């Protein structure tokens, strides 16, 4: 939609609440705190930069305005590109999740529930089931809130090493253990004979390359691919272990919480971001999907013209000066992956019982998008929790809908349109925004509407072969 391309967001901030598993509370809290700080920091820095982006020697208001207009025009021109940059990974993640759900029956089998959702939904009456699912959702959300607050507190007290360690452990668990299970189930589905040695070799390679890409440096595409795979794995775990009504309720409440946590002045995520900005630190680059490797730093100090020229001549591997602690710099150092993501992963990958926590942790991760100094090379960032919950919605739709593919398609389109609208709002407001609410609301509305209303209609039409 052209109006969207006209408003390329310079910032995109999705907020995910993050809950970390119990045994790694401090770590996860730190990481999510850091992440939020990074996000807020990025936002603040970007704000500051966009204001000081005029030519340094020019004090005339007009010139500043002109620069802002040029900025906006460039923003408009590259807006569509950035929206597409986010569409592709979100679509890929959803495609992977839906393909797995449709083919591998493991993820639709009920093998028990997580300890965070202790109440079963196999009850005798509808009222009992509703009550149980509400209780489950309440427990999950409170776990998430507690984790988030703990994270903010930990971040305030600067327990960074703990966060780092937690992130690494989380990403280890996710990259090795969950992908091992996934691979095993895929082999079972397609009846492929495999020996342990080959599997060990494959998983080892996959995991080690993933750790390197995520925590250190690696090709951008590979990092993005790993992030997408990790998000898909987490989403599959959630789809498997959450009972029906609980899942939908949790999705709804999470998006409300996302909205509150990011936008309210006392919200934990917002506090995290503000603390990070006060300390002028970068947030964790992990747990954030970045569409470009942003290496340029020091936007405020350079002439925008020079920056643009520089960006034209530079590759994405240009190292940013270290003195500017923008998130972009940190992300560049981390290869575009935030430790938050790792933390999130770590939390998730903890024992299966801790998955809800990790989910909360993931959720707690704010998603933010940050544009680079150079408008041409500005990328967009989206938190991994957003990926995960979008995929959970679409995966659940494909797993349990009577409308099957129609419902899946409808939810998919709804989520993408929600994402577009969020990006649009981001361009207008230029501050961190939650990416979950609009998309999840659209997705839920379309899921229930398509499943109950459109499906019988389309069924009848197809039966008679009428076309509308």
């Amino acid at each position: 939609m052209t109006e969207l391309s006209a408003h390329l967001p310079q910032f995109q901030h999705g907020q995910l609440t993050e809950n970390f598993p119990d045994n790694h509370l401090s770590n996860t809290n730190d990481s999510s705190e850091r992440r939020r700080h990074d996000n807020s920091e990025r936002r603040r820095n970007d704000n500051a930069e966009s204001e000081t982006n005029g030519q340094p020697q020019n004090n005339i208001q007009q010139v500043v305005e002109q620069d802002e207009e040029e900025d906006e025009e460039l923003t408009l021109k590259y807006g569509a590109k950035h929206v597409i940059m986010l569409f592709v990974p979100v679509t890929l993640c959803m495609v992977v999740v839906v393909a797995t759900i449709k083919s591998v029956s493991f993820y639709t089998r009920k093998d028990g529930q997580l300890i965070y959702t202790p109440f079963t939904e196999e009850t005798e009456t509808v009222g009992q089931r509703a009550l149980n699912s509400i209780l489950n959702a309440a427990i999950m959300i409170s776990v998430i809130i507690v984790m988030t607050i703990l994270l903010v507190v930990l971040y305030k007290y600067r327990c960074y090493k703990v966060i780092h360690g937690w992130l690494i452990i989380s990403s280890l668990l996710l990259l090795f253990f969950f992908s091992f299970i996934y691979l095993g189930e895929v082999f079972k589905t397609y009846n492929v004979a495999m020996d342990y040695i080959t599997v060990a070799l494959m998983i080892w390679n996959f995991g080690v390359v993933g750790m390197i890409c995520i925590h250190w440096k690696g090709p951008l595409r590979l990092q993005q691919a790993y992030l997408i795979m990790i998000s898909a794995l987490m989403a599959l775990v959630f789809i498997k272990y959450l009972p029906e009504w609980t899942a939908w309720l949790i999705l709804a409440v999470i998006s409300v919480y996302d909205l509150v946590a990011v936008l309210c002045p006392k919200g934990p995520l917002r506090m995290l971001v503000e603390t990070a900005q006060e300390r002028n630190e970068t947030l964790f680059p992990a747990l954030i999907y970045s569409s470009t490797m942003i290496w340029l730093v020091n936007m405020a100090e350079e002439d925008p013209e020079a920056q643009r020229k520089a960006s034209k001549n530079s590759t994405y591997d240009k190292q940013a000066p270290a003195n500017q602690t923008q998130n972009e710099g940190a992300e560049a150092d981390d290869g575009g992956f935030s430790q938050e993501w790792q933390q999130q992963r770590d939390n998730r990958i903890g024992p299966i019982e801790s998955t809800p926590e990790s989910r909360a942790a993931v959720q707690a991760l704010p998603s933010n998008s940050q544009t680079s100094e150079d408008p041409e090379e500005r990328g967009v960032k989206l938190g991994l929790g957003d990926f995960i919950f979008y995929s959970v919605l679409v995966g659940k739709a494909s797993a349990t809908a009577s409308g099957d593919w129609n419902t899946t398609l409808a939810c998919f389109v709804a989520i993408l349109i929600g994402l577009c609208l969020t990006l649009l709002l981001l361009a207008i407001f230029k501050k961190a925004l939650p990416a979950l609410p609009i998309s999840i609301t659209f997705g839920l509305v379309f899921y229930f509407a398509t499943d109950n209303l459109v499906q019988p209609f389309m069924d009848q039409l197809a039966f008679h072969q009428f076309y509308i």
Partner: protein
Amino acid sequence: AFFWLVSLLLSSLIWFIAVKASDPRDESLQKGLLIFGVMFSVLLQEAFRFLYYKLLRKAIEGLVALSEDGCSPISIQQMAYVAGVGFGLMSGAFSMINLLADALGPGTVGIHGDSQLYFLTSAFMTMVLIFLHTFWGILFFHGCEHRRWWEITAVVVMHLAVSGSTFFNPLYVGSLVPSYLLMAIAAAWAYVLSGGSAQNLRRFLLCK
């Protein structure tokens, strides 16, 4: 695509309410309700196409205001094409995708006495509808741009005619042939409106 989806949602809501309010055992009433649902849905789709046109118009104004040289990077004709394609793809996807999924599974077509050409004709019908939506998008937006109401009514009438012709299914001659004819007419019309001419076509075909 989103707009088409919303129109589908609303029309199926209407149909659903009508069905729930009526007697489920009366076959001809059900079929009549379905026909009513189809017609209503067609009208809703065209209404949403109009709404979408309004939205895009505002967007173009915004783009023009913000651009350097006073013209937007994307023209209204391109938008019309994209809108048409979006509508068509969504409509095609919703019509075909469950069919395709079932086609992957085991079964025999028409074993209960229905037509054996079910899948084939569905595929052709879907294709013609997708093309038609694209052309209608161009025609519709052109009509709105130049305030030619007869063009808009022609699009709506064509859509109703195509949907109506599908009521002849499984007498496929009654639905496929008129639809393809209408598609040819719409294609030629849209081509001329987009600036094409017989000369352009000849040059293109002879690769000059």
